[in-house]
């Protein structure tokens, strides 16, 4: 790569924080005892077991203060994906006698989309709400889509690819208006994995019955998630066994993970006021640097109603997988929605939903900042990205018309 005339950055520049985050040392510290000496089974009938149980309940209480709910409404799971599955399939199994219609959006995480598709195969009817070019749902379309047979509406709080924040509280009001007083249906579920640490998680203000959260996006451990489940919401478990988590999710509790997750969420929600403006400023610096140094790019997602750490751009005339692999050689970790990078060889469903043409989707790049991102890293990234793009464009035989 001599002709590029750049040296890799001395340390890793991690700009894929929407994928997962590093673990906070404070989080690791509270987890450690439960991985070492305090290994007791929370189901044990001795004080050693009670202590583990108390640690889990304490975690539940911490999370409930941030969600403005009761501690008994928090179900711990193995991941955000599992929480989404539990909310959707659990609702479907428990309420199919009332109806078999589900509403979601075209831009959900695969954990929601593929779960809904599995239910379609099992005879359920699913409406996929479309989004505008900024990735926002249309609340009128939502209102029209709700039928007497609708048992669930699942809308993500913030999109993981383009960072657009959906109007959850407004959607919650519309759903409440249409709700069947007797059955309480349809339930309203939101996947808030990308929103934690950035937005309020007050389930009452949002009007949601279920909310998915996970640890690995908020500087907590991987392999642990939670589902907020409003009192009197009826769902069936997906995993059967020893009646843990109020009989909704069996399996010996991941005590260290749960304790770490609660600590991470606590730190994330408490630092929101200072961290959000800080990261936003850094993000804006990165974006304006890119816009100044690279021509023919478009910014995807909502211009203002978006996650403060997210940049999603499409760079004309080059392909995203090649770009990401070059950036990796320079020690910069990023993501793309290009078909060539996906296991299914399909271009990102989110970018198709916002009506980006295929040739432009191929050149997409996601940069998501984290709390360890520094000014120096941003400066290096701008300079390096510009050089790599220039190189790939010089090698490219196409020159797409730029229309924005």
């Amino acid at each position, binding site marked *: *790569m001599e002709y590029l005339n750049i040296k890799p950055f001395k340390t890793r520049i991690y700009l894929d924080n929407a994928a997962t985050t590093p673990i906070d040392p404070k989080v690791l510290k509270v987890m450690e005892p439960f991985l070492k000496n305090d290994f007791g089974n929370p189901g044990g009938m001795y004080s050693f077991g009670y202590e583990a149980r108390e640690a889990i309940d304490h975690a539940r209480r911490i999370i409930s203060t941030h969600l403005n709910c009761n501690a008994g409404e928090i179900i711990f799971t193995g991941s955000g994906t599992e929480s989404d599955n539990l909310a959707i399939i659990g609702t479907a199994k428990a309420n199919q006698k009332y109806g078999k219609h589900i509403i979601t959006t*075209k831009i959900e995480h695969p954990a929601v989309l593929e779960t809904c598709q599995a239910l379609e195969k099992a005879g359920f009817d699913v409406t996929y709400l479309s989004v505008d070019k900024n990735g926002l749902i249309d609340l009128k379309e939502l209102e029209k889509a709700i039928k007497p047979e609708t048992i669930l509406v699942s809308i993500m709080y913030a999109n993981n690819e383009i960072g657009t924040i959906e109007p959850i509280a407004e959607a919650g009001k519309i759903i409440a208006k249409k709700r069947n007083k007797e059955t309480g249906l349809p339930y309203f579920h939101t996947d808030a994995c990308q929103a934690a640490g950035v937005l309020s998680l007050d389930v009452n203000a949002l009007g949601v019955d279920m909310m998915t959260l996970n640890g690995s996006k908020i500087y907590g451990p991987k392999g642990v998630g939670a589902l907020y489940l409003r009192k009197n919401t009826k769902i069936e478990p997906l995993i059967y066994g020893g009646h843990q988590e109020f009989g909704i999710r069996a399996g010996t509790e991941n005590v260290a993970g749960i304790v770490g997750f609660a600590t991470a969420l606590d730190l994330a929600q408490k630092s929101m006021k200072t961290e959000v403006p800080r990261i936003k400023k850094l993000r804006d610096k990165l974006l304006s640097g890119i816009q100044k140094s690279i021509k023919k790019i478009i910014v995807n997602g909502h211009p203002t109603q978006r996650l403060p750490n997210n940049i999603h751009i499409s760079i004309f005339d080059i392909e995203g997988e090649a770009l990401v692999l070059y950036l990796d050689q320079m020690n910069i970790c990023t993501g793309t929605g290009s078909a060539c990078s996906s296991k299914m060889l399909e*271009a990102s*469903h989110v970018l198709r*939903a916002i009506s980006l043409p295929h*040739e432009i989707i191929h050149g997409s790049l996601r940069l998501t900042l984290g709390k360890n991102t520094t000014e120096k890293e941003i400066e290096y990234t701008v300079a390096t990205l510009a050089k790599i793009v220039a190189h790939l464009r010089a*090698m490219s035989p196409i020159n797409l018309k730029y229309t924005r």
Partner: protein
Amino acid sequence: MKKLNKSPDVISFKGTPWLYSGIVKEHFLNPKNFVIKGKPTFKFNGVGMVGSPACGDMMKIWLLIDQKTDRIKKCGWQTFGCASAIASTSVLSVMLVEKGGMKVEKALEISQMDILKRLGGLPSRKIHCSVLGDKALKAAINDYFRNTKQGSRVVAEGSRMIDKVLKITDKDIEDAVLHGAKSFEEVVERTKAGKGDPSCLPLVEELAHFYISKYFPCENCAVKPNR
């Protein structure tokens, strides 16, 4: 250069490896013979271009062929595409000009498999990314034939033999998809590809997925239209 895979891939229970070989990486990160900004630094007498931006792959090849010896003296290229597309064009350009230049007749026989072999293989799901190199080359050689008044030597472009026993080409697979086959299984059912030569089935699967996502991106995608 940073080395990525020091140990061999873990092959999943479905048998699909993922990482790129060292040769692919070398040609991707240090591509040979590429043309900057669409202007080769050498005189050329054949140009070929295939692919489309919407499909995510596009390739252009420039050739200088010595008419006396019928050998390829220079080869330049441009590629829009992912790592494997860039690497396969780069390695093809090296194959063409090394050892005094390849004879035109031999160059016309280069298949995707030859390029793959030289690259040390590709992850199976990336194989379709290397299908354009030999096609662009063929187009460039035909252009040379036309430019040098050797019209009788122009060869038919396009199809590539997949199932050698049943003589099923990639065109047949493309046609099957265009006529409604929506999955690998349906493609096999329609074309009988693999019945003669089962070893071609992974390639058939690749091509089926490639053409399905090319022509029917929405049917094949996660999002279905509202009802």
